[in-house]
């Protein structure tokens, strides 16, 4: 994944040397993209009562402890991501605005709302224009298996892309980048044997998106 991203970046640099095209000035830019985000996870661990010092599950009905077999493999995870951005064009290299969307991590959905900046990378607006994006914000936890227990967190997402300008202020986008999302799950506990359980999550993903700008 990292290699692909790097190669894309190199390709963008080469493409930057190219044709130029004139465009109308527009003070607002809106982009809508959709794509995938990919990452890796560590192995699943049992969520049993840590009785006698190690994680095993206590069965209250039969009064014995049994081993837990992980049901999820460690490895790659892939999810959908939808992203929308709207901002004010200060200059072609700097467009500030907000972004929102939907991200799917493992089995949870998050709704990020972030302050974002975008802009053309090399200053010239040509037919194929590389651009960068940078956003930081907060994601609200969406539908997920734990319901209200999951709380959202901070989001950071830098990225680069290339825009194919169509001439009347619209364009087709391809972008890739990195997404760091934090979240917290406060698990429900019985309060007698387990008194509190919280999980601090930090998702790290690489995303590839395609969309339109207008």
């Amino acid at each position: 994944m990292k290699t692909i991203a790097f190669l894309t970046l190199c390709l963008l640099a080469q493409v930057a040397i190219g044709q130029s095209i004139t465009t109308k000035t527009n003070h607002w830019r809106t982009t809508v993209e959709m794509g995938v985000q990919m990452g890796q996870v560590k192995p699943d661990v049992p969520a049993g009562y840590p009785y006698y010092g190690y994680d095993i599950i206590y069965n209250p009905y039969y009064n014995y402890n049994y081993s837990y077999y992980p049901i999820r493999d460690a490895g790659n995870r892939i999810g959908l991501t939808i992203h929308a951005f709207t901002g004010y064009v200060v200059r072609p290299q700097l467009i500030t605005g907000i972004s929102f969307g939907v991200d799917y991590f493992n089995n949870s959905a998050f709704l990020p709302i972030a302050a974002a900046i975008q802009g053309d990378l090399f200053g010239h607006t040509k037919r194929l224009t590389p651009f960068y994006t940078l956003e930081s914000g907060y994601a609200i936890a969406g539908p997920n298996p734990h319901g209200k227990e999951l709380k959202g967190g901070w989001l950071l997402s830098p990225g680069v892309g290339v825009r194919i300008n169509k001439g009347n202020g619209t364009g087709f986008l391809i972008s890739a980048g990195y997404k760091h999302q934090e979240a917290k799950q406060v698990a429900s506990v019985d309060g007698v044997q387990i008194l509190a359980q919280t999980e601090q999550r930090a998702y790290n993903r690489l995303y590839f998106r395609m969309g339109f700008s207008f």
Partner: protein
Amino acid sequence: MKATLLLLLLPLFFLTSCTDNCERTTTYRKYTSVQLPISDVRQAVSSGTPQPLVEPGKLYVKDQYLFIVEIKKGIHIFDNSDPANPKAISFLSIPGNVDIAVRDNILYADSYIDLVALDISNPTAIKEVNRVETGFTNGLVGRTYWSYDKTSMKIYDQREEIATTTVKTDCEGSFNILPYLIPIAWFGRYYESLAFADGVYNSSQAPKTTTPTTGVGGSMARFAISNNQLYVVSSSTLQLFDITDPAKPTKGKSATLNWNVETIFPYRNSLFIGTTTGMYIYDVTSPAEPKQLAAFSHVRSCDPVVVHDNYAYVTLRGTSTCGVAGTQDVLDVIDISNLSAPRVAKTYPLETPYGLGIDYPTLFVCQGNKGLRVFDASNPLDLKPQQTFANVNAFDVIPISKTLLTIGKDGLYQYDYSNPANLRLLSKIAAQPAY
């Protein structure tokens, strides 16, 4: 600018990996097995410097002294001559102690398999005067279980502590297996985290008898003194000790009880025994020969019973698995004018009731985390709520000569109830619970 910007972006790809980083922190109760040679246990009774309250258990009042049990560790002794300013005098270390009872100047305390008689004529210098085996060889105290092995002469016990562990997970969160009832089964018995206090007070009727307000979920031994007998109850046995000579308790008869006994409350010539399946009434007119009078299975008595005249006041908690889950939390008033045939006279719904105390016409009911409630019980069939203290955590109460002692997870509160409609807080001895 453009080139530098590009260069800035590049390292970001390689600085952090694409692996999720998730960590789960769990706080739980951890149990470690401990072994105590019985010789060490027997030597350990000693009086020392006062200690802070951690897990307060049974409470006993004698004259101006307060005895508060520290579960399985010993007894805190306070001088309560000024209820607004109770003074800690000492801490009696008694391993395995759960319950106490006092007759004249002798305090009886259990210590695993023993019943220890202590001379408290001078509470600042308490001495052990006698020790007798109860005949019990195991016990369930709260969530921990102890047993005695005769061949190796050792007590096998469990130490409970709060521990925290952190593991790295796969970020999908955990689904804890919660038992279908809120409290969990532990060694075959159900236990709730909060049920743990008791209260005993000296009856104002006869100076020699002590009348405890009963109640406690969790502790194994139950002590009650009536006439010249000390009644000690384990989960299935009633053991009598003759204490005509208080310093020399003599083991007497024992009766097998077929139920899980939780509480014992002597009143006049009767013994009210609360079990997980009902309340049993024993006649103790001849104190050494208890005779079963009645079994009242309507009452699931994990919680206290207090008796006054012809009425017994019992609290039942629906969430408690001492009874049947799903039953409503109530305060029952039972007509016991005919001891062989008790019947429920009135039921009052009441949230999470625990211990109670009565100083006619005022009835005090503890409601755990919901606080303390005061009733006007001049007409038991029409209890009128007078005051509610919501900020107190209350398990049990002892009303004694216009001072109300309330024990709960956060400590001991003392109120002046000379005006029952307006209780006044006198003092608080704070407990420092582990969690």
